[in-house]
C-alpha cells in the first residue's frame, strides 16, 4: 500500500508554485513593477487567484510575458493592455472605470453621499422634534419594567 502511494505520488505532475527563482528579473525595480502588475492580473484558468500567486502553467507563461514586456521597455499600463487584448477583460482584477463599470466605481461614493444626506435629514428632524407626551404604561408593561429595573 505504502509503495503504491509513493508510486502514485511520483506519477503526479509536479506543479510549479507561484513565482519561481528563474523568473525573477535581475533589476529589482523592474521586478517590483512585474510583481505589482502580476497582482492585478487574474489567472485565466484558476478560481480567483492572481497570476502572482497561481501555480498554473499559464500563469507562469503570463508572468514571463509580463517581464518580457517590462524589459522591452513597456509601461505598466501598456503591459496590462497587452495581456487584456489577448485574454479579455476577465483577467483584469481591477475593472476599468469606464462604460458600464462606472456604475461599479461610483456606487460607493454616491451611496455614501445619499446615506449622509439621509442621516443629516434624520438628525435635523430629531434636533427640532418636540419630546412626545409620555404615554401611560399598561399594567403588564409596568411589571416588566420593574423586573428589568430590579436587575
Amino acid at each position, binding site marked *: 500500500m505504502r509503495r503504491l*502511494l509513493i508510486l502514485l505520488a511520483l506519477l503526479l505532475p509536479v506543479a510549479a*508554485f507561484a513565482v519561481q527563482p528563474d523568473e525573477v528579473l535581475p533589476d529589482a525595480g523592474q521586478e517590483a513593477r512585474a510583481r505589482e502588475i502580476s497582482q492585478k492580473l487574474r489567472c485565466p484558468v484558476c478560481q480567483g487567484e492572481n497570476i502572482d500567486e497561481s501555480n498554473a502553467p499559464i500563469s507562469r507563461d503570463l508572468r514571463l510575458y509580463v517581464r518580457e514586456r517590462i524589459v522591452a521597455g513597456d509601461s505598466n499600463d501598456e503591459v496590462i493592455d497587452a495581456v487584456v487584448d489577448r485574454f479579455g477583460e476577465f483577467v483584469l482584477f481591477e475593472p476599468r472605470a469606464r462604460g458600464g463599470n462606472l456604475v461599479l466605481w461610483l456606487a460607493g461614493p454616491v451611496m455614501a453621499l445619499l446615506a449622509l444626506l439621509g442621516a443629516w435629514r434624520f438628525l435635523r428632524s*430629531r434636533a427640532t422634534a418636540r419630546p412626545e407626551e409620555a404615554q401611560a404604561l399598561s399594567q403588564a408593561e409596568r411589571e*416588566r419594567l420593574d423586573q428589568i429595573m430590579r436587575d
Partner: protein
Amino acid sequence: MTAEFGHFALILAFAVSLFQMVVPMVGASKGWGAWMDSARPAAVAQFLLVGLSFAALTVAFVTSDFSLKLVYENSHTAKPMLYKISGVWGNHEGSMLLWVLILALFGAAAAAFGDNLPPALRARVLAVQAAIGAAFYAFIIFTSNPFLRLASPPFDGRDLNPLLQDPGLAFHPPFLYLGYVGLSMAFSFAVAALIEGRVDAAWARWVRPWTLAAWMFLTIGIALGSWWAYYELGWGGFWFWDPVENASFMPWLLAAALLHSAIVVEKREALKSWTILLAIMAFGFSMIGTFIVRSGVITSVHSFASDPARGVFILGILVVFTGGALTLYAARAGQMTAKGVFAPVSREGALVLNNVLLAVSAFVVFIGTMWPLIAEMLWDRKLSVGPPFFNQAFTPFMIVLAIVLPLGSIMPWKRAALSRIMRPLWGAFMLAGAVMALVFAVSTGRSAVAVIGAGLGAWIIFGAVAELVHRTGQSGLSRLLRLPRADWGKATAHAGMGVTFIGVALLTAWQVEDIRVAQVGQPFTVGGYDITLASVDEVEGPNFISTTATMQVARDGRPVAVLHPEKRVYPVQAMPTTEAAIDNGIFRDIYLVIGDAQADGGWAVRTYIKPFANWIWAGSLLMALGGIISLSDRRYRVAAGARRAPAKTVAAE
C-alpha cells in the same frame, strides 16, 4: 442502520419545525397561552433531533462507513481522526447539516433562556426561527441528503481535499456558522417585533446580546479563516476579497452596525425602523452568503461542492424570507416613531455616522462581489473584480471610521461640543502623532500606508484608553475597576480594531520577500536574518508524502529558530500542497516556503519577513474579547431578570 436513524431524526426535526412554525404563531395572535408555550419544548426537541442526526453522520465518518456516498467522497481510512471528524462539515451536505444544527441550537437557547421575554414575543420569535429551520431542513432533505447510500460500498474513500486537512477546518466553519446563523436570532426578533407592531427599549435590550454573540463568533470565525489562509496557502496573504470571504464580511459589517444602532434604540428610543431593517439585512446577507457559497454562481476556492439546482432552492429561501420580512417592514415601519430628541453632534449622531460608514462599506463589498454577475447578465461581459478594486473602494470608509471613532465614542448623549470632547483626547492625539512620526522615521519615508495606518490604529487604541480614563473622572483607579463591564468591552473591542489596523498597515507596507535557489549549507540573508538550508528529506505522513526541509534562521550569529517547511503530495486526491513554516513573533513572522528541486541541486526557497502579522489576528481576538466582556455585563444578560447563569456562554458551546 445509524445512517437511517440519522435520516429519520432529521425528518422528525423537519416535522417538529413545521409544528413550531405554525402553532405558537397562531397562539400568539389568538392569545392562547398553551399554544404559545408549546414553542419552547418544540425548540428543544428540534435541537435534540438535529443533534442526533448530526451525531449519526459523525459516527459514519469516524467509522469510515463507505456505504454512505458522502463518506466515500470525502473521507479515507488513512486520514487522521481529527480530519475524519472535521470532514463531517468539510463538504456541502455536512456543512448544511451543521448550519441547521446551529440554527436549532440558537432556537433552543432562546427557548431555554427566554424566561424574561413576554410570552407572545417569545412564541413569535421561536416560530420565525422554526420557519427558517423548516426551509433549510427541506433544502437538506430534498436536495442535499447527507445520508444517501451506495449500492455497492467501495473499498476505500476518495479522501478530503488536502487544503482542508488542517486544524483550521475543525474550528473555522463552526465559528463562522455560529456567527452567520446567530444573526437569525436578530432576524427572528425583528420579524416578531414587526408582527407585534412594537419596538421599544426592552426589545433592543433583548436583541442586543444575541447580535453581540453572533458578531463575536463571526469575528472569531473570520479571523480563523484569515489566519488559516495565511499559513496554509503558502504566500502568507491574509485577505483576498474572495467572494466567499466577502460573503462572511458583509454580515459582519452589518452586524457591527446593528450592534451600534441597537444601542440608540435601547438608550434613546430612536433609529427603531433602521435597526429593524439592519437586523433583516444582516441575516439576509448571511443567506446571500450561503447562496453564493452553495450555488457556485461566483466561482471561488471555497465552493467545494456547487450545484445550480441547490442554488435555486437557496435563492428561493432567500427571496421568501428577506422579501417577506422587507414587505412586512414596508407595511409596519411607519408605526415606529422615534422618541428621543438630540442634536446632530451627539453620541446618537456619532452612532448614525458609524452606521452610515459600516452600511455603505458593506454595500461597496456587496456591489463588488456581485458585479461580475451583473455585468454578465446585463452586457454579457465576463469580467473580474478583485483586491485592487476593493482596496481602493473600501479602505476610504475604514479610514474615515478610524478618524471619527474615538471622537464619537467619547461623546455624551443628546448634545456634544467638539471643543469639549477633544479635551480628554488630546493625549491620545499627541501619542498617535508620535507613533506616526516614529513609523515615518523607521520606514525611510517611502510608505504612506504604514504611517497613516499605524497612526490611525494608535489613535483608536489611545482613544479607547483615554475614554476609560475620562469615564473615571477624578476618582482614579477604584472607579476604573467599577466601570460597567459594557464600558470595558467597548474599549477592548475598539482597541482591538486599532491593533488590527496597525497589523494590516505595517504588514502591507513593510513585508520583505525573497525568492531564490538555495544551495544546501550556503546561508543567505533576508531582512537582517541569515537563513541556511540545512537539509531536505523525504518523509511519509499518514496519507501524504512530504518533502521536508530543515532551515536554520540566525540573526547576528545567534540562532533564532529552526524551521521545517514542507511540500506535500496527497496521492489519493492527486494534489500537492505547501506547508509553510513560520516562526511567530510579536513584531515579525519569519515565513519560509520550500519549492521544487532545481537542476543544479539547489532548492527553490521563498522567504518572507512579515512585520506585525500577528497583530491582525490579535486585534480580532481583542474585538471578540470585547464582545464577551460586554456580554457579561449584567444589564445585557439574556436571562436578565430571571436570575439565571450567564446564558450566552452556555449557549455558545
